[in-house]
């Protein structure tokens, strides 16, 4: 395998460059996936049937907490990738651990939020609005859950192998994924929660 040392670690081999490029294309597909969910949400959000509408079930506190947790985690993973490029494995791993913990906390709040919704009579089967709300949030939450496992696996591999072109590449791609989830959340926060609370 030819390693080009003039490039950052994650780009240093041909295979690495292909993987990063392919992942960007995958993110394009993910954008379409969430765009479809948002389009469906905007179609269905005032079709509440006999169930509650957004203003009745949304609470600012857990949502704000989730936003802070996820946005901070996006910042820390950025620091992690920066540390990786400086070759500082310990710092990189530290930032990744913080990122995953923040992600876990986010997920905890989201699960609490879902339980609250169901208690308030906004379950998956209540109305078209609650179905699409919980599906859109749930798809994002499922992505975060997968990301937690994925990030954990990468951490174990960095610990096992050190910072190699391979682990560097995986870490970088994971960071792209994580940032993407953050972007999706910004849309969820603005167009589902804030708009729904107005």
């Amino acid at each position, binding site marked *: 395998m030819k390693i080009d040392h003039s490039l950052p670690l994650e780009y240093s081999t041909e295979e690495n460059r292909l993987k990063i490029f392919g992942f960007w*294309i995958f993110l*394009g*597909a993910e954008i*379409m*996936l969430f765009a479809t*969910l948002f389009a469906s949400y905007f179609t269905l959000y005032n*079709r509440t049937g006999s169930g509650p509408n957004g203003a009745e079930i949304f609470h600012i506190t857990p949502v704000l907490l989730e936003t802070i947790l996820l946005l901070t985690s996006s910042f820390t993973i950025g620091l992690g990738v920066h540390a990786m490029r400086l070759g500082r494995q310990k710092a990189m791993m530290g930032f990744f651990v913080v990122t995953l913990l923040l992600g876990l906390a986010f997920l905890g709040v989201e699960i609490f939020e879902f339980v609250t919704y169901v208690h308030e009579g906004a379950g998956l089967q209540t109305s078209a609005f609650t*179905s699409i709300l919980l599906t859109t949030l749930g798809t994002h939450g499922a992505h975060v859950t997968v990301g937690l496992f994925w990030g954990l696996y990468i951490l174990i*591999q960095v610990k096992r192998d050190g910072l190699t072109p391979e682990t560097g590449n995986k870490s970088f791609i994971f960071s792209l994924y994580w940032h993407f989830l953050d972007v999706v959340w910004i849309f969820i926060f603005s167009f589902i929660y804030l708009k729904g609370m107005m």
Partner: protein
Amino acid sequence: MEFFERFAIPHPSIAIYASMVAAGLTMIAVIAGLTYFKKWGYLWREWITTVDHKRIGIMYLISALLMLFRGGVDAIMMRAQLAVPENKLLDAQHYNEIFTTHGVVMILFMAMPFIIFFMNFVVPLQIGARDVAFPRLNALSFWLFFMGAMLFNISFMVGGSPDAGWTSYFPLADGESVGSHYYMIAIQIAGIGTLMTGINFITTILKMRAPGMTLMKMPMFTWASLITSVIIVFAFPVLTVALAMGTMDLLFGTQFFTLDNGGMAMLWANLFWVWGHPEVYILILPAFGIYSEIISTFSRRNLYGYKSMVGSMVLISLLSFVVWAHHFFTMGQGAFANSIFSITTMAIAVPTGVKIFNWLLTLWKGKIEFTTPMLYSTLFIPLFTLGGVTGVMLAMSAADYQYHNTMFLVAHFHNVIIPGVVFAMLAGLTFYWPKMFGFMLNEKIGKWTAWLLSIGFLLAFMPMYVTGLDGQARRMYTYSESTGFGPLNMVSFIGAAIMAVGFVLIVYNIYYSVRYASRDISADPWDARTLEWATHTPVPEYNFAITPEVASSEALWDVKKKDHVLFKGDYEKIHMPNNSGVPFIMSCIFFAWGFSLVFSLWIPAIITTIGIFVCMTLRSFEKDHGHYISVKEIEDTESELRGA
């Protein structure tokens, strides 16, 4: 016993029991044959675990041909039922199931794998690459598609087939039998495979071209594959979401497409066609690419209007996303929306027309040689244009109130899909057959096939335009004698039977050519123009011993005519990916997962979900650096292939 009742078929008939026996016997014969000839190891090592794009391509081809016959039998049964008025061959339910599976199988499990076969086999060779960008992912794509197709195909024997049409509109697609569950889940599994194919080929084409091959020097089929892949990546996630929502409605009682609690059945129709219309262009653009290659090869001329060919495909791909509502002009979205979608739909005729004229101008003053692939291509031009013209008729939203849901529509889309896609697949199959297998298909039988299919096609579908305008509704299992549709439907049946003979001739042609065709052919038997013909036949594992250097879009032709040199330099060791059984195993688990969901078997569903994640975890931790082919091995292979 109660547990097993769910697997019973709701509307049994002799035909279904007979196919169960036939399917069982075929399975036993295949297993016995593999055991008797001791081919299990060979099958596992050389095919099931392969990551070679050429072999994956051939597996796509085999699946597509199998599905062609499955869907073809459905078609013959439908035409036989409608051949005479008030026929009792099939009952209404059975007819519903058959037109549904015919549509799904032909579009998603025949045409899709057929075009992906061409993309797999041809594109890496055409751009001078050693494989696709992600060979292992490619294997996973194939096996997911295959398992999705198999899951869908067992539906008529286990639990009952879907019966709500290939569009599966809600609320018609209710959970009365498990048919709609099969539809949602089987297509989901296959669709994920297709999405990954799209990602794979965008990366391959944009990042792995031979030195010198700029974007505007790519062969036309590669261009078509690139644009198709882009459409796949942007259209298939919509299907993923729509199918997931449909599955949740059926299995978990959500309210997306229901009739009360705010549900909106039209949302399904919109989402379905936001995917479904680009899907049509996913099928036709690679077909256009194949025609471009064939017409330019057998006219012995460069393709006329290369840039406008590329431009028109880009335009078609953009327009394909803004026409979806023309599938339901009569469903009440109002005159304004209908007008917009009318105009965008008609606009597609412009770039398509540009392509037709470019092909005609390529033929103009060419030294035309009528081989079988060329015969298909020249039959395609007038027949497809006919379908295009009726498409513009259908695009007029006011007039569509007359055509909607009649046989006129059925005639139209078969008129574009059969001469457009199916002829391209058969032309391409004949064209690339020698590159795959080292001998040519018989030309005489091939030409007979082309003519039979064309005549059969005209007899089968032209009468439908007439009965459709007279008001014969599609998807009706019978009609009364007083309608007067009887004679024309009999003509359709005869046409369908002639087409069936044509398809049987293809099988005979393969059998005949395997036995009698000469093995002594060159690596470039058609005197073709692009890189795939510059390597040996059979193509070695690494495709090209030395990466070619390209100076034009007709790289090989310019070697022949302008003394270009493709292969400069010496052999170097070649890095190749390792085989892996994980894609196959993971897809088998996906099959079990899908089956469990179809029948709401929650415990197996949870276990298989965990199984899928275990496979992904193993992949994450696996260290697979591939292997190298040494210079010595390359020299040996090359001298052997050159000698042969």
